[in-house]
């Protein structure tokens, strides 16, 4: 891309022509800002959505042109705010299922929201329509939805890696209204005159259509205004943002004060632009670092705090920089280094503290009670294992199944009390990933074997129905001796010869880490990992099937009840 830029500067008339000038730079008088430019036969305006070409990418990037200017040295630049494709952020999508043609608006303060690029990397216009319910967004018609290339109604925050459908006021320094579907400036509503309305509707020549009015409190005139606004907007879309657009806006302007106001807004933007964009490279780096170090305070906000994130993931985050000159990737790296330094300094003292805490509590086996109330339960729990063992030996132990999983141990004890007038101790078996979510289990310790037997026989001969659809299932289970460690597979050890062991023992640190791609461990880890994924799927399928079977039965129950 840089070679193209050189060529462009050599041949001034390489299919490129600036359009209407917006103004001069505030600080640097030699910089000119523009409202549009013509490149390769297509005219691009401010706030247009365009496609960008990037060397390694498979798909074209989509961005919105928010600023365009030419520097003193005749270098042309455009600032774009990016729309992210679902593929770009599939790491962080989580449960979110993107719609077809849906893209996400990048927002936030970090890397990846916007870039400054040469306009020569633009390859065409793109129609992006906002379908958000935000009150500042004009809703679009079905037609427009159909002809739009992409839609968006959510934004991706590059600081938190979250997706949200709430829009803040500013995105990359731009008013968020610029990203929503174009409607006429809010200020116009006050100044709008009916005569202009008629003029507008005549000009557009489209019959007025009912528009979904976001602002139900508005007066009738404003409603009409919005109608006109939507008509005008439709006009814009259908005309594909051609030269007609900038002309219609000035015409609608009622008074003189308005253009002044708009100009002020632009100049403010320009001022910002000058501070951040047109200053020297050195100036910009400290600014970025200030932002970076500020956000690094909270570890959750920083991407680089992740332990040894594989390089290809990091490069995804840096990838947006490829348009800009070499300064881009460098900036990203600086953030990483800074973050690592912060992590090291922060991590050590807290770890030290925590180490101390565990030392003080060596008498307690596994648990660290948080709440005083829990501690009494905890003591009960500590002896649970012994109690269970004893109960198992004396055959006082019964396993109850098909309970509602949200029961607590106390609930179970109460149920037994109500049903059998017996005082028992119960504990709900904690769920793990292999239990069905619909089936709760509890271990109940009775006072004696006889009691246990009688309860067992009662429950099996008759039927204790809980919640109208849960007959309690009771049986004796053979408990494996809890001390037997379950066979744990997957940890491999190498018997090293003695001399090596000594040396390695000094250097080796068995830390917790992500498997790096270049190690032999990675392949092995991947095998396990795929096995795990498979097992998750298998278990989910089993649970689904089981749930279905239960439903069939339960529905039969219900039909009986209604009869």
């Amino acid at each position, binding site marked *: 891309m840089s070679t193209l830029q050189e060529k462009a500067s050599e041949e001034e008339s390489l299919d490129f022509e600036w359009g209407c000038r917006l103004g001069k730079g505030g600080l640097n008088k030699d910089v000119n800002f523009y409202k549009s430019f013509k490149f390769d036969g297509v005219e691009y305006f401010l706030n247009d959505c365009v496609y960008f070409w990037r060397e390694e990418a498979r798909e074209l990037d989509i961005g919105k042109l928010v600023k365009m200017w030419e520097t003193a040295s005749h270098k042309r630049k455009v600032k774009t705010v990016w729309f992210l494709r679902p593929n770009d952020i599939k790491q962080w999508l989580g449960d979110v299922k993107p719609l077809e043609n849906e893209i996400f608006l990048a927002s936030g303060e970090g890397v990846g929201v916007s870039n400054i690029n040469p306009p020569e990397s633009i390859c065409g216009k793109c129609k992006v329509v906002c379908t958000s319910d935000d009150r500042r967004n004009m809703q679009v018609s079905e037609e427009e939805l159909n002809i739009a290339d992409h839609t968006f109604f959510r934004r991706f925050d590059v600081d938190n890696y979250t997706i949200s459908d709430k829009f803040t006021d500013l995105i990359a320094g731009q008013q968020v209204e610029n990203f929503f579907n174009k409607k006429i400036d809010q200020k116009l509503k006050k100044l709008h005159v009916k005569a202009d309305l008629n003029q507008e509707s005549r000009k557009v020549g489209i019959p007025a259509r009912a528009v979904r009015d976001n602002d139900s409190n508005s007066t009738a005139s404003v409603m009409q205004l919005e109608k006109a606004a939507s008509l005008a907007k439709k006009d814009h879309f259908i005309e594909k943002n051609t030269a007609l657009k900038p002309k219609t806006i000035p015409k609608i302007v009622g008074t003189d004060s308005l253009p002044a106001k708009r100009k002020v807004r632009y100049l403010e933007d320009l001022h910002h632009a000058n501070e951040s964009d047109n200053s020297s490279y050195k100036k910009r780096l400290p600014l970025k670092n200030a932002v970076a170090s500020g956000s690094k305070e909270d570890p959750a906000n920083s991407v680089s705090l992740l332990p040894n994130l594989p390089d290809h993931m990091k490069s995804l985050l840096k990838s947006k920089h490829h348009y800009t000159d070499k300064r881009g990737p460098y900036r990203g790296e600086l953030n990483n280094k800074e973050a690592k330094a912060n992590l090291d300094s922060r991590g050590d003292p807290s770890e030290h503290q925590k180490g101390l805490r565990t030392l003080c509590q060596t008498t307690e086996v*596994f648990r660290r009670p948080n709440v005083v109330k829990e501690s009494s339960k905890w003591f009960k729990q500590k002896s649970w294992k012994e109690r*269970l063992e004893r109960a198992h030996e004396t055959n006082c132990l019964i396993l109850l199944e098909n309970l509602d999983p949200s029961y607590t141990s106390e609930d179970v004890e109460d149920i037994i009390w109500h049903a059998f007038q017996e005082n028992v101790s119960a*504990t709900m078996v*904690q769920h793990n990933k*292999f239990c069905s979510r619909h*089936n709760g289990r509890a271990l109940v310790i009775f006072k004696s074997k006889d009691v246990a037997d009688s309860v067992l026989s009662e429950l099996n001969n008759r039927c204790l129905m809980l919640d109208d659809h849960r007959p309690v299932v009771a049986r004796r289970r053979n408990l494996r001796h809890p001390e037997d460690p379950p066979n744990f*597979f*997957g940890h491999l050890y190498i018997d090293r010869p003695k001399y090596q062991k000594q040396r390695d023992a000094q250097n080796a640190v068995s830390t917790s880490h*992500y498997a790096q791609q270049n190690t032999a461990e990675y392949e092995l880890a991947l095998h396990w990992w795929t096995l795990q994924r498979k097992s998750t799927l298998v278990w989910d399928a089993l649970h689904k099937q089981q749930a279905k079977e239960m439903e069939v039965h339960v529905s039969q129950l219900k039909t009986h009840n209604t009869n």
Partner: protein
Amino acid sequence: MEPSAEAKYAAFKEKVKRTVYLENLNPQLTDAVIRTALNQFGNVVNIQFVPNFGLENIRYAALVEMGDAKQANQIITEIANNPFMISGKPRPVRAFAAEIEMFPFHPRKPGGKVPWVWLDKKDPDFEVAQKIKDTVLKHASEASSLFQQQLLEEEKTHKRQAETLKANYKKKLLRHKYVILDKGAVKLAEHSVK
């Protein structure tokens, strides 16, 4: 005085949101190791190991409570996408969002009364209830057999990997012995020069 049941429940639910269910842990892992491991993601508040009462279908697991829900979610997404090892290789751990039933001693759901009734044989629902009971038992055995099968697969993988590893290591040792220690490479080089 004591917070109401609803408040307790709500507070507990909030805690659940912040907690990560970590599975496939090495049985020898201690509290401290897990803490160090997850400290890289944020602030670890509490670690509770899931007790093994000797029933089947149990894996060694822990409930780790983080400082806030964002950190917990981060852990879950990260571990879902990249294999993460805690002090042991090469089997990665699994992380899931905790559910309230995973906790021991969770507070009662406020306002829930458990309706219960004894059904007699004459009751029309009795048969259906029996069927349900049978289904429950069937499901339990299905689950345990699936679990056994999974264990078998894991054992197979483990054995296979161990063998490969041993073979590779032997090769490396051989190489080390002959080429480096005995200066085999040097000798070869001298020989070829001659």
